[in-house]
């Protein structure tokens, strides 16, 4: 299993798209803060707003990145090479989820760190009271855990929907579905996007550990479905 995860990580390391995402994510995070930075009256903490907006956007981008990569392997049929090496498919698919969780965590750490490094001086200049170092570390760790979980979830979606464009469409479209579903069933706080918001506030309607627990459960559930489908799917 270690060799498989290491190989998957090498796959990510040896293509430009990974590095492009690494460059783009902090930029996305910083840009999404402009409103909070330049309108501090409505925001008692720039960093809270950073978490509210950026964590969701960044986590969804990481999920889409994972889905595109894994779905692309099915589209290009390169996953067949993985299955030649390891004929039993479940370990291959599990390794992909693990590798994207790992990559998601690294991307989240980098994004959180860079975005805070940019935002804190701006916030101080605008007389917005910054949080303490402990809270900053907690927020960066929160971003990393959320992006790790969404990375694994995205990889599983890539297996289930082996076409990158459709997979990305499904991920983006889910935000609309979640709004309708959540309102209709009265479970809005417990659905993935809302859980990201709860995590952004380091706990809200749902506590931080519960939010992460539920997100991990979603990733495990979709991952199990992906393995069930993936292990039986013919590679034509």
């Amino acid at each position: 299993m270690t060799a498989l995860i290491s190989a998957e990580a090498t796959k990510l390391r040896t293509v430009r798209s990974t590095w492009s995402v690494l460059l783009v994510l902090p930029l996305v995070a910083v840009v999404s803060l402009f409103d909070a930075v330049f309108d501090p009256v409505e925001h008692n903490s720039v960093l809270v707003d950073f978490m509210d907006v950026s964590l969701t956007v960044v986590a969804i981008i990481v999920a889409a990145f994972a889905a595109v990569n894994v779905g692309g392997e099915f589209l290009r049929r390169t996953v067949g090479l993985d299955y030649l090496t390891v004929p039993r498919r479940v370990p291959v698919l599990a390794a992909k989820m693990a590798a994207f969780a790992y990559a998601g965590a690294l991307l989240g750490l980098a994004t959180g760190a860079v975005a805070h490094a940019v935002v804190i001086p701006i916030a101080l200049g605008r007389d917005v009271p910054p949080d303490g170092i402990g809270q900053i570390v907690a927020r960066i760790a929160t971003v990393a855990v959320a992006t790790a979980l969404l990375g694994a979830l995205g990889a599983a979606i890539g297996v289930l929907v082996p076409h990158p464009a459709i997979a990305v469409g499904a991920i983006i479209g889910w935000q609309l579905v979640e709004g309708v579903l959540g309102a209709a069933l009265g479970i809005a706080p417990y659905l993935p996007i809302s859980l990201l918001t709860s995590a952004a506030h380091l706990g809200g309607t749902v506590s931080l550990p519960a939010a992460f627990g539920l997100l991990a459960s979603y990733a495990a559930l979709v991952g199990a479905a992906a393995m069930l489908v993936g292990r039986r799917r013919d590679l034509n």
Partner: protein
Amino acid sequence: MNLATHPDRRLPAGTQRFGEDMNGTAKAVEVAGLTKHFGSLRAVDELDFTVEYGSVVGFLGPNGAGKTTTLRCLVGHVRPQAGHALIAGRPYRDLADPVSTVGAVLENGAAHPGRSGRNHLRILARQARIGPERVEAVIDRVGLGDAARRRVGGYSLGMRQRLTLAAALLGDPAVMLLDEPANGLDPEGIRWLREFLRGLAAEGRAVLVSSHGLAELELTIDKAVVIGHGRLIAEQSLSELAAAAGEPQTLITVAEPDRLADVLRRDGHEVLGRDGDRLTVAGDDARTVGRIAFEHGIAVDRLATARPSLEEAYFRLTAGKEAIR
């Protein structure tokens, strides 16, 4: 060098040497009663054939005949509804060390276009716990050379073929499965491939190579497995295929083909067909056919004998067997 006796050779688990399993009986490839249908399309239909170690077997059939599906069944990419497809006596998924047992080229150019050829091979090697030195060895073996540093997206078709062959060779396998490896290759590439495949067989490996035409494999293979509509049409050595190609024929082009045909039939000759002014007569007795035409005052433009080529025999076997989709 015989690979079976090479000191560095990592033998597949359960294999004493090429051609023998623990009981000394396993074929390199054994397909029996294999059936696979996709909805109403019967892609492979109760197919049977075997491949021995130390031989190159051509897996022939028109496009859509079921060759690729059969190869995919062999490596577990496609699950058959009935029958079995074994390699070294076992289903692919039960092989203890699949990469060292089978090298497969099923998707030519299946590599991330943004990754270098060398990194592509390194990833596969890492998955299979094969050392990086083996990556360099297979790059040399297929003649990829400096191109290994470049991104796969910039490769020519021939270079992609070499890269996929290199990937298949990573585990130093005893059995090679190749799906239309000559597709798109120029004459030089085909010659290189021919020598490459013969070299693999000379080392004791079994090679099953598919193609939709016989011409490009005629000088390479020991045996042909011909399929059409997913069913076995012929499993013959080249000499058997040549014998089955048909009797020699006499071809005569004349000014009055209908009159000559009548005369020849009255004389007991079998006229097989007419194509314009040319008659095809069974047998290679051109002297007699010419004499009969002369005696009846029929002017002869051309007279020759011919034996159907292997390619013609193949086309005859597979005529009308193209898949209807």
